[in-house]
């Protein structure tokens, strides 16, 4: 190699290292700037009064987000109740039952659900789900159950694709051994495949939770955004994400800082969920 190519090679390598480091830099910036805005309020008002406080009236000095934390978990749990069984069934059907042609059509179609923008989910929720709940179950319709229904659909693609991957990585020999013992297909799935794909399937549920808890636009359109802990599935609620999105555009001073504190709490929850999910994905199925 000539000196010139050597020089060029070295230059390229350093450029690429810089590019690779950019992701870390961005992550660092996001952390630092959200923390820098949100932490001072924790110190000023007190961690306990924010996380366990019931009253959110930021212009009067009340920054309690406990109802929103509870609400975020409630809708996420509701979404999981709807999305997890349906998503897992789809994943099993795709990997074990569908023919090659069906799969070629079905898998992309299911992934397209992820492409529908969340504002469109929210809009359709307001037009179709909210009146349905209002007329048949009661309340205003802007409720825990409407939000959970929409979020349940929104997390399907995540659950389907990750559990599908987990199920398809179960070695073929397992299936063959089970079939050789005279087990039916369902017995094989139920007793052999699902247990060995367990950690991946759990990870898909946790990542689905992460998606649901971070979802914003659809939620603020359907949830009703009331500042109380819902006592029934027909009550409106406000999530952490909703709190930020509803007020960020006009908040100033401590009020704005309060939204960043909300962001910190959201960030911590998401990080914990991602950590749990990675734990599930990284444990390889037993050889």
């Amino acid at each position, binding site marked *: 190699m000539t000196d010139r*190519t050597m020089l*060029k*090679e070295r230059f*390229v390598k350093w*450029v*690429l290292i810089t*590019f*690779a480091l*950019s*992701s*870390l830099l*961005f*992550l660092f*910036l*996001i952390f630092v*700037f*959200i923390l820098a*805005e949100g932490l001072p309020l924790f110190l000023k008002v007190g961690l306990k009064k924010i996380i366990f406080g019931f009253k959110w009236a930021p212009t009067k000095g009340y920054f309690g987000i406990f109802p929103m934390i509870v609400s975020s978990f409630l809708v996420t749990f509701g979404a999981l109740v709807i999305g997890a069984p*349906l998503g897992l*069934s*789809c994943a099993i*059907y*795709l990997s074990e039952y*569908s023919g090659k042609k069906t799969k070629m059509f079905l898998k*992309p*179609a*299911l*992934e*397209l*659900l992820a*492409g*529908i*923008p*969340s*504002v*469109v989910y929210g*809009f*359709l929720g*307001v037009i179709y789900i909210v009146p349905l709940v209002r007329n048949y179950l009661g309340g205003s319709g802007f409720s825990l159950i409407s939000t959970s229904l929409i979020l349940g659909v929104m997390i399907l693609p995540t659950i389907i694709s990750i559990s599908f991957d987990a199920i398809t990585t179960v070695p073929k020999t397992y299936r063959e051994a089970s079939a050789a013992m005279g087990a*039916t*297909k*369902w*017995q094989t*799935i139920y007793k052999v495949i699902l247990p060995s794909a367990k950690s991946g399937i759990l990870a898909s549920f946790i990542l689905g939770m*992460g*998606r649901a808890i*971070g979802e*914003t*636009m659809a939620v603020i*359109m359907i949830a009703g955004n009331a500042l109380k802990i819902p006592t029934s599935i027909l009550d409106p609620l406000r999530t952490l*994400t909703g709190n*930020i*999105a509803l007020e*960020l555009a006009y908040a100033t001073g401590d009020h704005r800082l309060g939204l*960043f504190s909300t*962001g910190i709490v*959201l*960030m911590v929850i*998401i990080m914990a969920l*991602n950590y749990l999910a990675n734990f599930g994905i990284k444990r390889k199925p037993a050889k």
Partner: protein
Amino acid sequence: MRVNPRIINQAVRVGLSAQALFTVSILVVIVAIICVKGFPYIDFAFIFSFPEDMGRHGGIFPSIVGTIQLALLSILLATPLGVGTAIFLTEYTRESAFTKLIRFGVESLAGIPSILYGLFGFIFFVIKLKMGWSLLAGVLTLTIMILPTIIRTSEEAIRAVPRQLRIVSYSLSASKWETIKKVVLPAAMPGILTGIMLSIGRAVGETAAVIFTMGSSLRLPLSLMDSGRTMAVHFYILAREGISMEKAYGTALVLVLSILLINVVAYYLMNKAIARYS
């Protein structure tokens, strides 16, 4: 009573196919509703004229332009960064603490919900760097948001390129970078393009991260420092503030069809990429 396992087996098969069918029908129903309700309201004028009276009348031209500007500029920034990172991770290092750290960064970015990107973009680009609500702030925020998708898909595509191709290139005395540029990247191109298309789709449909960075001005953004409104943001405002249901459905149709088209192209490219080396 013990039920014959074969009967259970059949019942499960029926049950599972019904659920898969149900799930696909959700997609079909969503698209059908948007098409049927939106179709009467879109025509040439709707696409190419300016909105009047907050969007109550007229078209959505500025928001279409705003969407294209935002998506293309973000891709323009994120692609070299993302593909470069992928090349570094696959071709220039072995797995080490350093690559683990970078991967941790990428995974973490991928997990951050869009509202936190909005929060960050708002405080960092809009306020601290004094960009104001602007196309530039939106572009920079979305660049960071779509970066993980581009890195992951490019990395997979580059890894799938067979080793033999590289060895042949080296044996012809090509340098490492020449090999990457002339052999590896062209071979990995369909996979890389898949990631780019998926990212464009994500940028087009994004609202939470855009509305707090690019703002929601109804004017046509003519410079990087102008605020603007994407189709998704326009649709959100029309629907949420009840400005016009007709215009909301029309906008939703253009929005959803563009995203579906972009995603279908992405899957086509993905199939091409998979077919190439298997």
